[in-house]
């Protein structure tokens, strides 16, 4: 027999053997996908959650380290780390909503207590710090708390999912992860701005108000909130904003209530940053009615109640930006938005008020890095 034919026969039989092996592998994979397909899917989803969780952890650790580095400049105490960890785990318990009557007042009270306690704790850690820097560090710790909270919640669902291998738990955690990561990244971006005292996108309302009140006499109207009376084309403009340049949002609700109780007001104009939808441009300005103010809702409630009581129209102007823009150092596009908002306010005043009228202009937002 020819040697070449022998080789061909061997290889041909090897080809049959390979075909058999491939068929066996195919059947094995088919059976595996039937019995363990879901487990494999769960495992892959868990891995995705784990990756996101590790990223959030990095951001949280980075925030903690920045806070520590900043505070070490004012306090070299070895117990500083423990004090910071204690602050990062600080929480507040919202009041019961079984009977919702008067819940806003209760929330306001609890938040005030929290703020005072928090400020006292921080002041005891860094007694020789100036007020502006104290407010900035307070904001920075708030960012740290938010990142820590996000990390803890996501870790809880990850570990719970891993423990129970529940497809629905893991599926929810995986589905939520992209938006949670976006929020965490926005918070991580805020760290640089808060640690250096740079103005953030959220301060757009404060900047508009500051531009109106610049060069006029200012006075404190409520805690961390200033006002100035400005003349504009025969109208009296009472401009309200948080006290800067430290990181503050002030108490605009209380300020508006006080002004409305003391004087006759013809209109209230509120300027704030608004979250843009995907596809919208940063710095785009929009106009509407209502109380343009975010947060838990205490200030919004106070302003709406007071406006209704005194029958004063509420006008709103918003400058659009993303969550990341709102929390990081202001972009040039937002300054362009500020100019547009100022022009809109001037037009609104001319159109909706008469000469001799008195109106309130409230610049809402965190005034970090913005004076007045």
């Amino acid at each position, binding site marked *: 027999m020819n040697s070449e034919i022998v080789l061909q026969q061997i*290889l041909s039989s090897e080809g049959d053997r*390979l075909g058999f092996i491939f068929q066996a592998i195919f059947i094995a994979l088919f059976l595996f996908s039937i019995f363990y397909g879901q487990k494999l899917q769960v495992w892959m989803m868990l891995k995705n959650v784990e*990756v996101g969780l590790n990223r959030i952890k990095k951001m949280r650790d980075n925030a903690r380290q920045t806070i520590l580095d900043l505070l070490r400049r004012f306090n070299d105490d070895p117990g500083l780390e423990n004090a910071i960890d204690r602050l990062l785990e600080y929480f507040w318990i919202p009041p019961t909503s079984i009977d919702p009557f008067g819940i806003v007042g209760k929330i306001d009270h609890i938040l005030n207590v929290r703020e005072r306690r928090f400020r006292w704790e921080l002041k005891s850690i860094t007694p020789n710090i100036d007020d502006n820097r104290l407010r900035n560090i307070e904001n920075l710790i708030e960012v740290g708390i938010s990142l820590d909270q996000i990390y803890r919640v996501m870790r809880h669902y990850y570990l719970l999912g891993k423990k129970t291998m529940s497809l629905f738990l893991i599926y929810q955690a995986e589905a939520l992860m992209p938006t949670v990561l976006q929020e965490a990244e926005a918070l*991580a971006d805020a760290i640089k701005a808060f640690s250096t005292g740079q103005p953030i996108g959220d301060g757009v309302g404060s900047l508009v108000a500051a531009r109106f009140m610049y060069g006029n006499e200012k006075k404190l109207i409520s805690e961390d909130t200033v006002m100035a009376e400005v003349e504009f084309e025969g109208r009296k403009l009472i401009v309200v904003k948080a006290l800067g340049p430290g990181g503050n949002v002030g108490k605009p609700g209380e300020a508006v209530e006080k002004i409305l109780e003391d004087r006759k007001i013809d209109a209230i104009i509120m300027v704030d940053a608004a979250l843009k939808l995907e596809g919208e441009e940063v710095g785009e300005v929009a106009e509407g009615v209502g109380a343009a103010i975010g947060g838990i809702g205490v200030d919004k409630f106070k302003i709406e109640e007071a406006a209704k009581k005194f029958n004063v129209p509420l006008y709103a102007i918003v400058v659009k930006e993303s969550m990341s823009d709102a929390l*990081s*150092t*202001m*972009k040039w596009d937002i300054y362009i938005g500020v100019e547009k908002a100022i022009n809109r306010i001037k037009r609104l005043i001319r159109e909706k008020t008469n000469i001799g009228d008195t109106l309130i202009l409230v610049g809402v937002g965190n005034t970090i*890095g*913005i004076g007045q």
Partner: protein
Amino acid sequence: MMLEVAMSMKNSIGFITVFLLMAALAACSIFFLLLAVNAYHQGFKETALYYSMAGLMGLIMSTYTLLRIVRRRPTVSTTLNYEVQTLLRCLKCGFSNTRGFADGDYVLGLGDKCPHCSTPMVILAIYRTPSKKEKQ
């Protein structure tokens, strides 16, 4: 803390194991492809087809898995790598200047003196220049 350390250790061991397995699979796949070329040249087309199928499948699977696990390594956000500028203007003579942000700068605060009339200039804006990520 212990849990986090254990998690990161477990992650590292898992990463190395999967990486080594996939690297071995990639090496085997390349070997199979070489066998396929050899078999084709010798005229055993059917055998070459089996080898190439096995080689390609293994290569695709290992490359895909390797890419996924390498990309999975946590990365720190790059949006922090931006520069911050301060825009100053002299309200007396209108001179404007832009410089890097300095500690203590704030919008509508007083900044450096005007080089023309020595009046303290007003900070009109503190803004960030686009980061690499945003430019992309």
